[in-house]
């Protein structure tokens, strides 16, 4: 006979709102072998934990069941409580009555019944549980950071600063990310490149950082402390070990492509570095635009390269890395505004999106910092349209958080550079941040015209001679209650920040959850904003939600600390739930040896039976189900334990 204690959590109202907790407790108290059943508002709190620890001693409990949130949330917490109270941690059972019960129905009767069934199953299973001894494994001390924008750069630098090795994986030919494209940063208006490029250089110079540009994560295997990350190095057709960054090849190259960095507003060569301060300063060849790859002849870069670094035969290669922790800092994409035809982007050349205008401001940009439009004119009137796709139920319901502030920045810079009329068409002005409201106040003094209303359309259809040759922005001015037509030379759209196009693939690779848009989900929105449901994988920056630079950098620094908490340990506790062979029942068929992906089982030829190496076993249970004589026992998930739980569940 075991002595079971059941603790049912209210989780404030999260559980108690739909599950009648007292009724469940009374039910649990009457189950066989249950000695005590209690309820508490927050079992995970210190008093809640003390209640459990106290009861273990008071009632001499040898099993505890905590009916609360998901085991993925607090199983570790309660295991620690048990250990501290002298009870083996594997004798703790978590019953998920929040994520898989109270949160997924509004019906009290249904939720209460399900909670009872789940606890009944847990009691059946708990009776058959056995104490297990944990194992410890070595932790790989290195960290992989995915994404070389400001988030990834900051994370890598912080981790490297304590002497840990970091692999910084970036998919484009240079690090820097979106921040490198910006001209000025709000609200201080300091030059983006001036604050970013020293950090980029610091990455290059840091011996603890291995920079992997033009690389993509191809595969992630393993688990916290021991990830195996496979990186695909895309063919650059330039041997970077030989290249001395003289860039003579770039100068001579006849190929022309659209500069991704300049958002297609300028051309780049087929062999190129994305921008003058790119890190590394070594070029790559873009196959799509290279004359040799298209026509089969040219090879000018090869002829000119004194280092003989050009290699047209280069193919993609793979790098295998072992790491203890991974930080995903993969950033965001701007929403494609073309489908929002009412704003005319792509149809009217004078309509620009936010990143394009950033490049126009930049002195190293396509227009050398002059605000001139595609037709060569300098605009005399400009309308900046907020919330394009953001705060919009048809597109992205959320606020992209940075657009109000950068639109104010644009207004300031446009005033400064063109002295023209600048209109801000906004729904609400959101300036929550240090120095942001002050920046807004400053702009209110700068003769910028603020119109409270979301732009409805941008059209070329004029109604009077004054509008001739202009784009007309139509808007309902919600302050005056009047419909307005604003004729302007140039329109700037502030599109939604959205998850990367391939965020879902990345999420799958790293086993992350995503929200309905595709942003990576944090473990807890308030208390674990950088951790994920996958131990050892952390997130930072705009891949989690739209964010400005200060928030991104803070998160990145935090993610570095999180990763270090993993890799600064030499050993890590592993689940004790491994498989074992009951030699008396083993027929020596070798099924287990064949199926195990970790080579944990092997044949003891002398005895004619299989044996499992616990150090290699990960506890998946594949072999147990393959064993024809049921000789393999998966600890903590034995046939008897699983079937007992099923029996308990099916009684209600």
């Amino acid at each position, binding site marked *: 006979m075991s002595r079971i204690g059941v603790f049912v959590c209210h989780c404030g109202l999260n559980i108690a709102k739909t599950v009648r907790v007292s009724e469940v407790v009374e039910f649990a108290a009457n189950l066989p072998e249950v000695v005590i059943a209690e309820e508490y508002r927050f079992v995970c709190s210190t008093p809640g934990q003390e209640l459990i620890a106290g009861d273990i001693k008071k009632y001499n409990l040898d099993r505890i069941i905590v009916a609360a949130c998901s085991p*993925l949330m607090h199983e570790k917490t309660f295991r620690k409580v048990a250990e501290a109270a002298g009870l083996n941690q594997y004798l703790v059972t978590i019953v998920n009555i929040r994520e898989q019960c109270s949160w997924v129905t509004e019906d009290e009767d249904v939720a209460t019944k399900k909670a009872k069934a789940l606890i009944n199953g847990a009691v059946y299973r708990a009776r058959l549980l056995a104490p297990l001894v944990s194992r410890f494994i070595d932790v790989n001390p290195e960290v992989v950071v995915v994404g070389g924008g400001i988030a990834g750069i900051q994370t890598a630098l912080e981790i490297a600063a304590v002497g840990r090795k970091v692999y910084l994986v970036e998919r484009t030919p240079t690090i820097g990310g979106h921040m490198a494209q910006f001209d000025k940063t709000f609200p201080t208006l300091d030059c983006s490149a001036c604050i970013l490029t020293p950090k980029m250089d610091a990455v290059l110079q840091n011996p603890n950082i291995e920079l992997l540009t033009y690389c993509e994560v191809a595969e992630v295997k393993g688990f916290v402390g021991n990830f195996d990350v496979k990186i695909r190095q895309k063919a650059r057709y330039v041997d970077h070990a030989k290249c001395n960054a003289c860039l003579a090849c770039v100068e001579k190259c006849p190929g022309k492509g659209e500069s991704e960095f300049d958002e297609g507003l300028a051309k780049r060569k087929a062999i190129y570095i994305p921008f003058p301060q790119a890190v590394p300063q070594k070029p790559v060849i873009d196959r799509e635009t290279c004359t040799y790859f298209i026509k089969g002849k040219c090879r000018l870069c090869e002829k000119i390269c004194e280092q003989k670094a050009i290699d047209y035969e280069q193919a993609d290669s793979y790098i295998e890395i072992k790491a203890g922790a991974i930080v995903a800092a993969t950033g965001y994409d701007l929403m494609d505004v073309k489908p929002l035809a009412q704003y005319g982007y792509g149809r009217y050349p004078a309509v620009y999106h936010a990143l394009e205008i950033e490049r126009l401001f930049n002195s190293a940009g396509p227009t050398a910092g002059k605000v001139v439009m595609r037709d060569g004119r300098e605009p005399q009137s400009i309308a900046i349209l907020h919330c394009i796709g953001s705060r919009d139920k048809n597109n992205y319901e959320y606020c992209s958080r940075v657009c109000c502030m950068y639109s104010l920045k644009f207004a300031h810079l446009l005033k400064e550079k063109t002295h023209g009329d600048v209109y801000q068409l906004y729904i609400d002005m959101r300036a929550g941040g240090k120095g942001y409201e002050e920046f807004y106040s400053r702009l209110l003094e700068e003769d910028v015209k603020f119109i409270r209303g979301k732009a409805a359309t941008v059209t070329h259809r004029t109604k009077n001679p004054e509008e001739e040759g202009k784009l007309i922005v139509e808007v309902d001015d919600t302050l005056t209650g009047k419909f307005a037509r604003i004729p302007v030379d140039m329109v700037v759209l502030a599109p939604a920040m959205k998850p990367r196009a391939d965020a879902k693939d990345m999420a799958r690779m790293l086993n992350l959850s995503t929200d309905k848009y595709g942003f990576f989900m944090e473990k807890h929105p308030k208390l674990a904003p950088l951790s994920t449901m996958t131990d050892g994988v952390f997130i930072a920056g705009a891949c989690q939600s739209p964010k400005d630079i200060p928030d991104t950098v803070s998160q990145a620094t935090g993610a570095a600390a999180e990763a270090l908490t993993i890799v600064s340990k030499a050993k890590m506790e592993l689940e004790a739930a491994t498989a074992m062979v009951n030699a008396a029942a083993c027929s020596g068929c070798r099924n287990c040896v064949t199926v195990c992906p970790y080579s944990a089982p092997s044949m003891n030829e002398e005895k004619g039976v299989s044996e499992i190496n616990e150090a290699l076993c990960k506890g998946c249970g594949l072999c147990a189900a393959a064993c024809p004589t049921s000789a393999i026992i998966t600890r903590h998930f034995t046939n008897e334990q699983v079937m007992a739980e099923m029996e308990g569940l099916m009684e209600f």
Partner: protein
Amino acid sequence: MDFEPKILGIACNWCTYTGADLAGTTRLKYPQNIRVVRVMCSSRINPSFIFRAFQLGADGVLVGGCHPGDCHYGTGNMYARRRLAITKKMLEFAGIEPGRFRVEWISASEGNRFAEVVGEFTGQVKGLGPQTKLKIKTD
């Protein structure tokens, strides 16, 4: 009263169980006839579990694992896929309608998929009525 089926879910820890949690975190609503057992990997599922579930009175059994190729343990769900395909045939042989057993690959990010599948499956099992073929009569 309407027939409310009993559905046993068996979900792998890494994908489908986490996906089910996500359905909760995002407050999706789905029928609560399902009772989920967590195993570490869908490959842990011994076909006898499925038969036992029907013996215990389950009207339907839903198995969830990682998408093929995404298994936390590399190849576990590939084995599970084959085993459970055969299990389904054996169930049919034993007289269990194919509609009472379903295997789905639901990732940790597919909370909505979990809710959808459970909703669909519950409706389907409801339509098939109580399962009596393998149920062991206790009363």
